[in-house]
């Protein structure tokens, strides 16, 4: 089965509200990256975490390798936050590859 399970698959928010995206891992991961895919299909880097939490503006991410999950919190959502968000994790088995989640399609409404 999939090693990275991302939820929800779709999320609608009103401007000014917030929510959280989550990725659960079926195995221990070494690190996680979060991306947003823009309208042109490019992957924009949001966070890289090997542990703990990071915050950047209205976004905050956490990664717990032992508990096998990562979260991305969005607060005070704006229209321009709309897009598809992906988590991708690096397995701890010595692999080099990023294992991607299936994405969360976020729509921010006025």
């Amino acid at each position: 089965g999939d090693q990275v399970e991302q939820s929800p698959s779709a999320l609608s928010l009103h401007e000014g509200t917030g929510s959280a995206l989550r990725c659960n891992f079926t195995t221990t991961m070494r690190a996680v990256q979060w991306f947003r895919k823009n309208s042109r299909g490019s992957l924009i880097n949001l966070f890289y975490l090997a542990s703990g939490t990071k915050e950047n503006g209205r976004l905050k991410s956490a990664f717990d390798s032992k508990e096998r999950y990562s979260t991305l919190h969005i607060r005070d959502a704006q229209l321009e936050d709309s897009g598809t968000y992906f988590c991708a994790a690096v397995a701890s088995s010595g692999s080099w590859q990023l294992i991607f989640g299936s994405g969360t399609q976020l729509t921010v409404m006025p």
Partner: protein
Amino acid sequence: GPKVLQIPSHQIIDMGQMVTLNCDPVSNHLYFYWYKQILGQQMEFLVNFYNGKVMEKSKLFKDQFSVERPDGSYFTLKIQPTALEDSAVYFCASSLASIQDTQYFGPGTRLLVL
């Protein structure tokens, strides 16, 4: 932020032909990657490359695939010969260090094999 460029953005070829996808990684990066995304499916790892060698490849990296970066120029993915199932978007990525560093992705090359 750091930019990875990919050329061409789109490519249409006939089955059996050879195709080369080009990636211009971030200038001081040392590790290079290719990922493949079939329409409607998740992005999947193909291969990573460091110091002139393939370090890891997935089962998707068929014998018809090869990668190289001659003399620090483009990092390329060559498919010879192409098959219908090679139709996908191919993303290049690079990182400064190894698995303990952020991978930066290009915008992708959309390959259609007819």
